[in-house]
């Protein structure tokens, strides 16, 4: 739990694992998170959503009308994004893949 704001954090998620596991990886945790946010936003842009890092501990997902939700990790992002967008988000959707290939 964060001592300042009292928010419970989830345990480590497997997507956070690479830098933790490998001492030879020079990337810092902060760089990892920014990298994750940058890539995720390229996907979320297709759905009109945006992710920002929050204090290096959680993420904030928001839509264009300003609704937002705090999430712990990328796995928790997708159900939250579907709820915010009120539609399913499918990585196998041809239109999404076309858009990513053009990005």
């Amino acid at each position: 739990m964060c001592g300042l704001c009292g928010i419970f954090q989830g345990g480590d998620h497997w997507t956070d694992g690479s830098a933790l596991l490998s001492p030879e990886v020079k990337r810092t945790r902060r760089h990892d998170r920014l990298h994750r946010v940058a890539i995720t936003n390229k996907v979320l842009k297709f759905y009109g959503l945006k992710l920002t890092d929050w204090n290096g501990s959680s993420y904030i997902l928001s839509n264009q009308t300003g609704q937002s939700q705090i999430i712990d990790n990328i796995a928790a992002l997708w159900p939250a994004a579907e709820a915010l967008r009120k539609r399913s988000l499918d990585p196998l959707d041809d239109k999404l893949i076309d858009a990513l290939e053009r990005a």
Partner: protein
Amino acid sequence: MAAYAELIPVNVITGFLGSGKTTLLQRLLRSPRMARTAVLINEFGEVGLDHLLVRQVDESMVLLQSGCICCTIRDDLNAALRDLLGKRQRKEIPQFDRVVIETTGLADPAPILYTLFAEPVLRHHFRLGNVITTVDAVNAERHVTRNVEGVKQVAVADHLVLTKTDIADAAAAEQARRILARVNPSARKFDACTDAIDAHTLLRSDPYDPATKSAAVQGWFQEESLRDGNDSADTHDHHMPHHASRHDRQISSFSLTFDGALDWTAFGIWLTMLLNRHGENVLRIKGILNVTGIDTPIVINGVQHLVHPPVHLDSWPSQDRRSHIVFITRGMDQERLRRSLAAFNQLSTEAVAA
């Protein structure tokens, strides 16, 4: 939290009714190496288990709000494992360093695995070990092709043990082998009647034990049908009758191969999004990845919505430095998966500078 490799491994022995689960368990428990193993079973059957640490659990489930059957906490299992842990810590029972769970014949294995991954107390003490599925050669076709649970039990297995080949006629046994090869080509297969079944190979050798991980991962890709990345469904199987309700027909196994390195972050984003939408249909995913910026391979291993923490291998198992990912899916399109992952991976090229 203890390192993943130091958690107490939990093996699951599953298989259809009468497929020889308890007989296999008895055989394994005879080994002196199994002395420090606690065993959880659903019912005390006619076959007595003469082992120091056998406990019974009653099947009861708590369905989580997501409503997906594979994301279900098995309340009974949670209570039984916590009870074992408490007694072990209070020294009321002998110390154990492994747990084996024998499921009922009709059990869907996914909630058992989910309970280990997701329950907050259990996940800090236990990890999933090999899943072993017994398949009765006499009834394999009926059990695996006509039952959703049957085909799922075969699909999620790390090891498949074919039983009763001594009483099955040769054609039925051959047919059973074909079904297993088609549904789960990357699982290691044993014949209970002719192969040596030892506890070390079946239970202890897994990708999370530092001593065995390299060999265990190498075994995933040894099957001929997976080497060229082709869909193994419907090969060698011209004699099987077509049937509209055959559950095994909906299952396909294939391997995706990527020449260039994969960005770990992009891969994590892609896989979490895929499993969120299609987790129920991704019965199994196993892979060895060449990850950007890391010389040695990373191993991924997942069952439906659940993914083990990634593991580093100390070296590549062969000269092949490409990424290989084996999928066992229900009705998913191989080419679309490949295209989707490639599209996500190329997003990382510009993002790195960000």
